[in-house]
Every structure is written in C-alpha cells, then in structure tokens.
C-alpha cells in the first residue's frame, strides 16, 4: 500500500469560516457608515480613516516582527481596529490624531497583552480614552456640522434669535451635549432675562430634542459627531448584515440598547422621574455613539463574555453605565467608558454564568 490518507479526529467537514473571513466581513459591515460619513462630512473622514487603518496595520506588523511571531496583518483584525479608532474621532481633528490613536490601540491595547484574542479592553475604545485624556479639546469640541444642517440636529428657528446663549448652544453642541447642559440647568444663568423665560426656552429646546424631526436627523446622520457614529441608518445596515452572517449576536446589542431605552425613559426628563416623552428614549438610542458602540464595539468577540447569559448581563451593565454617565457624569456621552468598564468585568461575568448542561442533575446517575 503506497497510498497515504489523512487521518484526523472528527469532524471531517467544517463550515467555511475563518478569522480573516470574520474580520473582513466586519470591515464590509462598517463600510456603509464610512460612506455616510464621507457624504455628510466630506472626504476628510475618508482620509482620517485611512490614516487610522494604515497606522494600525504598520504598528501590528512592526510589533509582530519585533516579537518574532508570524505577521498576521492580512487577517483584517488590525484594519478593523484602525477603522474603529478613526470612527471615534471628530472630523475636524488633525491627521496625527487617528495615527497616534491606532498606534496606541495596537501596541498598548492589543499586542502588549499577547495579540488577537488576549486583550482585555476593546483596543479602539482604549485608544479613544487615551486620546480624550491627552487632547481633550480636539476630541470633545470643534464639532463640524454636516453639509445638510446643524450640529445638534436642531433648527435655530425653534427659539427666538435674541436668546444668544441658547442659539450658541444648539449651533455648537452635539445633541447629547445639549441634553446634558439643559439637564444640568446651565441655562439658569440666562437664556433670557428672567428665570421663567429661560426655563421656557430650555423646555422648548428639550422638547425639540425628543421630536420626530430631530430623531430623523439623528437616524439618517444629519448631525455633528465623530466620524463613525454619524448615521444610525448606515450602521444598522452593517449590523443587520453581521447578524445575518451570525458574526454578531443579538444578546449584547439588544440588552444594551433596551437598558438605555428603559432607563432614559425613567430618568431622562429634566423635570423629574418619568417626565420625559416616549420619544426621549428614542433620542437617546440614536444620539451619540450608542448604535456604533452597541453593535460594533460591545460585541467585540475578544472582550465580551462567551456565555449567553453573560452577554445579557454585559449589555445591561453597559446600558446602566452609559445612562449614569449621560445623566450624572461629567461627559455628555458614556458609551465608550461604559464598554471599557464592562470589559474589565468579563472574566467575572463568564465565571458566574457558566450554563447548566442539558439535563443537569446534582448527583451522578446510576443505572
């Protein structure tokens, strides 16, 4: 017998899926959001994104070379990281911001832990936290309005043009920033001459935030924000594709968004519990980075729980932290920090959510 046959343990057939195919599908899923960003903010979003991707890929290759391990940049995971770093950056930022962010994400966020599969934190979000801490002005102000409208998604005609401070607010701040400032009663120092009038203007703006027109602007992307979060619609197209391909799973995004929805309905109003309209939680779902975070960051395989129950706890935890930061924290937006904080809890969540095996019994069966 000269024939040689492969002998291996079962199974002998496999689904056609691999790490590169997963990563490239994520890249594909993020493409509509990038296109939307180019449409609304101009080609600078494309350049910033490319800088982020190139920096991530080079950093990964260099570190793998130094570590004398195989260079795996073709698996697409560095590209995903670079994309997501750039997606977290304001389009008015200088070119080196995504570069520094991506170098940090790959070097400190990923490779220092041992590379793909071993990192504790979502590398892109860790980079964002680093950038916000290092260059807060660049990262949290200087918002660009989209070519179609305002930064906050609100129309300046909704309040008297004489209310200068209020006008400034709605033309220069992001939707969540407006909401935060109204809730923090910044206006008491004077949207108008007297407190009652100030209050009335504040209420008008707040009502308009949770208005169908504003929410439409948020949904399609006609608001200011970071590169990747601008169009909820484009993100949802990508997310639907990944869900269809079984690359992301419903538990984390749904429990995360559901928690934000419920909590902002209860606590979101500026006049006490349950004072918000039912559209306010919808506003909170589409404003800021929640759609991007819930579908593309919290679902990062490496840094989220593997157990089904664990994913739900993880999503709820992210939701609670997001709402706490949005409502009482110093930042208008809490998606990135909430996911990073929950990343730390993943080993613990996995440990306490090991599922019961099918037919679980306490005693060993006999007979």
């Amino acid at each position: 017998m000269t024939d040689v046959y492969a002998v291996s343990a079962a199974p002998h057939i496999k689904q056609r899926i691999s790490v590169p195919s997963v990563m490239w599908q994520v890249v594909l899923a993020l493409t509509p959001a990038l296109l939307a960003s180019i449409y609304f903010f101009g080609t600078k979003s494309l350049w910033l994104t490319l800088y982020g991707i190139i920096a991530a890929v080079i950093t990964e290759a260099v570190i793998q070379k130094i570590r004398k391990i195989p260079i795996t940049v073709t698996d697409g995971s560095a590209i995903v990281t670079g994309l997501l770093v750039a997606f977290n950056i304001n389009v008015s930022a200088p070119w080196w911001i995504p570069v520094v962010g991506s170098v940090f994400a790959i070097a400190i966020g990923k490779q220092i832990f041992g590379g793909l599969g071993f990192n504790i934190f979502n590398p892109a979000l860790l980079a964002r936290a680093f950038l916000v801490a290092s260059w807060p002005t660049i990262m949290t102000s200087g918002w660009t309005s989209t070519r179609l409208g305002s930064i906050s998604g609100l129309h300046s005609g909704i309040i008297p043009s004489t209310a200068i401070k209020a006008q400034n607010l709605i033309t220069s701040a992001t939707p969540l920033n407006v909401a935060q400032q109204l809730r923090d009663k910044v206006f008491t120092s004077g949207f108008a001459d007297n407190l009652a009038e100030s209050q009335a203007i504040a209420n008008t703006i707040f009502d308009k935030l949770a208005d169908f027109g504003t929410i439409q602007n948020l949904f399609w992307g006609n608001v200011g924000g970071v590169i990747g979060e601008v169009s909820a619609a484009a993100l949802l197209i990508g997310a639907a594709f990944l869900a269809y391909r079984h690359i992301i799973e419903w538990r984390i995004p749904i429990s995360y968004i559901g928690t934000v929805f419920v909590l902002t309905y209860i606590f979101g109003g500026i006049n006490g519990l349950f004072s918000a309209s039912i559209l306010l939680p919808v506003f909170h779902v589409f404003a800021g980075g929640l759609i991007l975070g819930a579908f593309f960051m919290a679902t990062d395989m490496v840094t989220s729980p593997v157990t089904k129950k664990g994913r739900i706890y993880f999503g709820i935890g992210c939701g609670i932290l997001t709402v706490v930061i949005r409502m009482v924290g110093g930042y208008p937006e809490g998606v990135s920090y909430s996911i990073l904080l929950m990343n730390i809890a993943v080993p613990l969540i996995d440990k306490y959510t090991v599922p019961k095996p099918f037919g679980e019994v306490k005693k060993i069966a006999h007979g």
Partner: protein
Amino acid sequence: MGFKTFPGGIHPHDFKEFSKDMPIENLPFSKKVVIPVSQHIGAPSKPIVKKGDEVLTGQKIAEPGGFVSIPMHASICGKITKIARFPHPTGAMVMGIEITGNGEDKWVELIDDEKYLDLPVEEMKSRISEAGICGMGGAGFPTHVKISPPKDKPIDTIILNGVECEPYLTADYRIMMEQPDDILAGLKILLKIVNAEKGIIGIEANKPEAIKKMKALVKNEPNIKVISLKLKYPQGAEKQLIYAATKRKVPNKGGLPMAVKVIVQNVGTAIAIYEAVRFKKPLIDRVITVSGKIVNKPKNIKARIGTLFTDLLDFCEGTKEEIGKIISGGPLMGFAISTLETPLTKGSSGLILLNKKDAQIDEESTCLRCGRCVDICPLNLVPSLIANSVRYDDWDAAEKYGVMDCMKCGSCAYVCPSHIKLIQWIDIGKIKVDEKNRK
C-alpha cells in the same frame, strides 16, 4: 408547520443528493470477509472456531464475552483462514476472524415463525441476543441489554431513530423507503418486550417521502406515531431526539434514556430485531451508504458484515479523483481510517471518501472568544473554555465547563472560525478528568 427539535445545533449542507435516490443494491458476497470480535460497546466476543474450520453462513463463530456483549456469526460460507489483528472502522487494530468463501452461500437453518408476536417475551429476547444484534446507528450498544431495563425502571415509550442527521448518509432513508413494514414489525416487537404503550418514529424533515410512507403505514396504529423533526444536526443524537419527541431531558453525568422511561433504537436495528425474532436470522448484513463527491457511483449497499471497504468502493466503480481521506461513518462523528482494507461492522452506516483538498487540515489559530461554539452546543456546554482549560492542564475547570457531558457531536469544531481542534482537546480532557476522578 413547526417541526419538533432541540436547542442549539448546526446546519451543514447534507450532501444526501448523491445517494438518496439510489435503491439498495445487494453486493455479490465477497470472497473474503473479516469479522472483528469487537463491533459493539462492551466485552469483545470470544472466538469459538479455529483456523481451518468450515463454517456456514449464519453460523456462530464467537460467543459473547460477558453480559454486555454479543455473539458473532459467519457472514459467508467458507473456511476460517486467519484469526489475527485487523484494521477496524474505529481506526484501531482489533482481533478479527477472517473467512475465505467457497463461492456458495449455504446458510444455517432458519425458521419462519408467522406468529412471532405471540411468542413469550423471554423467547423474543433470547432470539435477539442469539442473533448478535447491537445498535446499528453507530454506537453499537448490545440490544438485548438495552431492552432489559431493571424492574424499577418502567419504559413507556420506544423511539425509532430514522433521523440520520449526518451529512451524506442515506442508508436509513433507503430502508425506510424500501422496508417500512419490517421496521414497523420490529417496533411492535420492541413495544411488546418492554411493555411500552407508545411508539414514536422520528424522521428529519429533509426526508418528506419517508415521512409520508411511514405515516401512511401507521395510520391504523393508534399507539404509534411518526414525527417530523427539524433539519438540524445533531437531531439524531439520542438525548436530542428524546427531547424533541417527548420534551423529556435525559439526566447528564451518565444518565440513560431509561431514566426518562424511553428506549431509542435505530430503524436498521428494528429490522434486525424483526428478522431475528421471526426468522432467527443472525445479524450478518446491513445497509451502508458509500458516498462522497469523488465516488463514481455513490450507492446504498446491502453487504455482509466483514466485507472489506475496498470491495464496497469497487462496487461503486471507484473514485474520480485521488482519495484524500477515508471516513467510516458520517463526516461529523465518523472515524478517519488509514486503509480501505477495513471490514464493515454492524455499526458501519457510511463509507465517505473525500478528495485531497477537502482532507486538508486547517491550522489552529487563537480563540477569538466569539462564542459561536457556546451558541450551538446542543448540550449547553462551553466548548471554548473546556478546550482552553485542557490546554492549560486545568482539569477542574474542564470538568466544571462540562467536559464529561460532551457527546463529541463535533458541532463546535464545525463552526469554529479559529479552526480549534475542540474535539481533540475535549478527548484529552475526558481522559485526564477520568484519571483525576479515579484517584
């Protein structure tokens, strides 16, 4: 219409199109067969013949090696030419009895007991035990043991497994199409033996014609029903089938179906039971699917036990391409074997040939913790964490994540994007945890 099923599972392409419409063909019996003394779970049988003895077809050539064991019979008529170690469909080398045929097919005497259903239960059981029947779905548990539950474990339901959820395999489908009456007769015998009131025949939804045929057959049998099950692997695994059919969960940690008052038998085994009880015919042949993209004429073949795979493949006119891998059984739970000079055993349901390309083994990469294995595990285990625990010699953790409950259906390895050899890690884990618990 909602099909019954179980939680978890995968949807591989079923590749049944190659052989599902090929009627069962009888293989002209071979010149040479090898009867391994271990074709079942339990003690190997003990040969009672020696080299040079002449045997008739159906003559007993090995006695059971204990209660959990079965006798073996000559599957052709001829001379014992060798008793030695031969390749076995599990990939091991196992003691076997080689018979060289004399060209005739002279049988031991059979009977025809038309009133077989009126026989005393003990006589039925003894005929089954004498016929050397074990489960023909793959695992090969001795049937006479399975149908003799302790007195304090009453059985109320017999489930016949016609699911055949492994890709490529169509042997059970063909026998349901061609011998439905014999299957029903076998089921009636089983119901009588264990005094169960209900019979269920479970068939996967991708075999609508078999479902129709069996349904028509049991129309006037109020206590027997045919259920169609969702197309999903591993629908035919015992615990999953029982759950889909009855919503009962067999306990883990080694629990048996009898704990939930159920016995499951393969449809092929039911025919063997019928033939044993009515005709006293020993189990000396079975239907096997020979298939694969590269097989010239994929077929369902009725062949004598002990027939070498090479004869089966010749009967299918060989392969179009060079063979890369030989699989005995189905592609998800079967064994890759190193030679075609391996005999067909009572549990052989398939012979699948893969080409060089499909036989390539992917390299393992790091676990992404994507949780796909967790999502589909039909036993609700955490395969990735089991594999990781085994990798780092943490046997306690492996046990905690359920390594001992795993039935090795292979679904986790099938879906893993990192191509982690989950079943191999789990196999190591099973051995090591067992060692640890024995101490």
